[in-house]
């Protein structure tokens, strides 16, 4: 059995952390989807039942959680495009680290206007 002085702890830098984040955000979105289909199903009960359910989403605390949820969706989607490029683009593996920073840049670029707009809607009434 080979021994390694450095141990076997994987230090994958950016690629490892985006992989971890991709899993965490994916599971988060999956559980939200379950809740979201059930709250939307209230339209088959009555307009009042649906309006009561959606009212929850307009609560300021839940409104802040929605910023987190959209952040999870944006990261998962943008990093997902990076994963597809790493897998299918011939130069993808070579530029995977650079693409991580493109993902981060696009994430900030989309998150800033969304957060401003959404929080104005949530807190502005």
């Amino acid at each position: 059995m080979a021994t390694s002085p450095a141990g076997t702890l994987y230090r994958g830098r950016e690629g490892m952390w985006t992989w971890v984040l991709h899993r965490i955000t994916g599971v988060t979105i999956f559980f939200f989807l379950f809740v979201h289909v059930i709250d939307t199903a209230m339209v088959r009960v009555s307009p009042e039942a649906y309006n009561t359910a959606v009212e929850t989403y307009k609560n300021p605390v839940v409104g802040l959680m929605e910023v987190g949820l959209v952040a999870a969706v944006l990261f998962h989607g943008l990093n997902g495009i990076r994963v597809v490029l790493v897998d299918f683009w011939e130069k993808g593996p070579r530029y995977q680290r650079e693409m991580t920073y493109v993902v981060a840049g696009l994430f900030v670029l989309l998150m800033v206007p969304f957060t401003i707009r959404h929080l104005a809607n949530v807190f502005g009434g």
Partner: protein
Amino acid sequence: MSAPALDAPHSPGGRATGRNPRSTGNFELNSWLFQRGSGLLLVVLVFGHLFVNLMLGKGIHAIDFAFVAGKWANPFWQVWDLAMLWLAEIHGMNGLRTIINDYATKPTTKFVLKTLLYFSALVVLVLGTLVIFTFDPCIDPNSTLEVCR
């Protein structure tokens, strides 16, 4: 400190999935491909969904029964939401299946988690599909919505 001993890597379709490699066919390859194809479509569908529902107009404050009725009066949004529902649920189910395969070591744990996963996916797909196809904007007989007068 010496490094912990590592097992030899699992052979494809071997111990990792507990199946005979010859009986799995191309299932894992197909689900891997589906994950990427559906993912690209979902970027368009989900980002579009978030933009229309949360960014346009009054955002989340505009969402109520009348908003849903207005959207689903248009077959375009019915198809959009149906495609998003099916692609997202199967994409998520496939992702969670992979995570269970990676972290659940006992066969019983794997079986219980996967049973729960497939059952919840079935509930979401059936319920969501029924809601889109049987939606009635005039479910309330005293509705004041334009389509019901």
